[in-house]
């Protein structure tokens, strides 16, 4: 039996008197895709922030490949193999699309400590960057300044940057939020093909139920910071409590997230 990539036990975050995330347990197996769903304020982003080191957990542990990473700073967790995207675009606006990926690649390969090379002549990293952009289908934009490309392309660029560190675990925070239906279909297909390639292990939060059921091997349903239910997409679809607590409100939720 293989060991889990990530083991989360009793993860809890309290802000003052409020509990944003309460006692979450989760094992993530290699190469699987787990979706985390729940209404706004269910604690999904806080959960991500704790796993990726942006916030310190109040309680509980995060173990990556047998190593306790609880409460480490973001750059150390990233070095150990957890890479994440954000709900809002988080790129380098004044650089070209290709340079955006090159920054992350040179960080990953340790080139970032080189003071006396010429970055624009680093062919190895350039090739790798273009390969990644090709994989995301945006290599035609490589010379554009990142701030001028479309919203959907920015989100894809961010996924390229997330993948550049060859992570053991990829956290995607609402990868299709704010996208047009067309872009959403394209992105879902793309993430699906990346997941199917067997190169990556994904944790995805998502509002769009079509996306979730299309991608996930397993689904964790959160409600008010707690685990409501976990299971396969089929089980989630048929679970009465989940339907009442979440799927019943699905329409309102998507409207809210688009507003």
């Amino acid at each position: 039996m293989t060991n889990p990539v990530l083991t989360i036990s009793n993860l809890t975050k309290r802000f003052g008197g409020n509990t944003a995330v309460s006692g979450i347990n989760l094992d993530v197996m290699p190469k699987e895709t787990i979706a985390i769903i729940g209404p706004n304020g269910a604690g999904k982003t806080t959960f991500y922030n704790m796993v990726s080191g942006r916030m310190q957990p109040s309680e509980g542990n995060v173990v990556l490949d047998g190593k306790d990473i609880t409460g480490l700073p973001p750059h150390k967790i990233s070095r150990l193999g957890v890479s994440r995207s954000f709900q809002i675009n988080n790129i380098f606006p004044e650089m070209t699309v290709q340079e955006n990926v090159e920054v992350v690649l040179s960080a990953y390969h340790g080139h970032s400590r080189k003071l006396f090379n010429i970055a624009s002549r680093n062919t190895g990293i350039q090739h790798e960057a273009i390969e990644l952009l090709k994989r995301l289908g945006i290599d035609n934009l490589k010379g554009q300044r990142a701030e001028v490309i479309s919203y959907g392309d920015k989100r894809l660029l961010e996924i390229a940057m997330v993948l550049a560190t060859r992570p053991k675990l990829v956290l995607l925070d609402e990868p299709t939020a704010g996208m047009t239906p067309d872009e959403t279909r394209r992105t879902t297909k793309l993430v699906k093909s990346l997941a199917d390639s067997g190169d990556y292990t994904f944790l995805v939060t998502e509002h769009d139920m079509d996306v979730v059921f299309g991608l996930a091997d397993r689904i964790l349903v959160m409600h008010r910071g707690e685990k409501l239910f976990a299971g396969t997409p089929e089980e989630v679809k048929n679970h009465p409590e989940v339907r009442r607590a979440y799927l019943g409100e699905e329409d309102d939720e998507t409207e809210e997230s688009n507003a």
Partner: protein
Amino acid sequence: MKTRILLAILAVVIAGLIAVPWVASYFYIFIFTEILILGLFAASFNLVFGYTGMLSFGHAAFFGVGSYAMALVLIHLEWPFLVSLLVSMGAAALLALIIGFFCVRLNEVYFAMLTLAFGMMVFAIAYQWRSVTNGSDGLAGFSLGSLGLGLDLTLANPAVYYHVVLAIVGVASVILYVICRSSFGMILRAIRQNPERVSFAGLNVRAYRLVAFVIAGAFAGLAGGLIAPFLRVASPELLHWSMSAEPILMAILGGTGYFLGPFIGAAVFVLLETWITSFTESWMLVLGVILALMVIFFRKGLLGTVLDWWMEVRK
């Protein structure tokens, strides 16, 4: 094609700079020496501001400490000039390490306040520690004997010192330029645009900021080491906060987004200062007014404004 034109322009400029002592009077040799030294000072500041995005209001501390280190070494140890310059760089880098250690972890506003406060503190120390720094009069009465590498150097001929400064600033600028274009330099630009994303790429942003701060401090110290023999004194004015305003204005005047911006800014600055101080003593007032106008209306600097205009014309 474009790079060839640029290289040709650069070659002409360098040839022109080398030829200055043969075609210009002593007055202009002094002016050009000052432009080169202050240009290096401003370029070192821009590594921190224009590239890494940290607005330091205490950069004169490193410049001044470099000049004091030079004066002290020349007075007490009489070491060769090139060795003394290394001491200037080392002293400034050490100070930058100490100040940077406290400052680089802070957000923009606290960083600005703390660098200004540290700069003023260094000034106060130099002003009051009379036994070492000779207080408000500063350190004077030193002389150069040798350059190092077995060569002699005297200050008697300004043309000779100009050429020494040109060579050293030239080498230092090439090193700074390479650093800006390196992978490390790319990370610094990334940090300016989005520090959090850089830390999520696995880099310790504070450490990178600190290294940039120390490198900039060292080059400011080098510029300070060059200015002391030129002025023949290392005085507290070189450490004063209003001296920190000069590289800020030069970088913004020329354009913070370009490597050559601070050098062009230094040239305009020195020529303007020479012209304005010929009929008024209130140079600081003019400096403040220009800085305010540049920030409000020409944030991209002269170089950026001209290049934008050129792009418009070509369309």
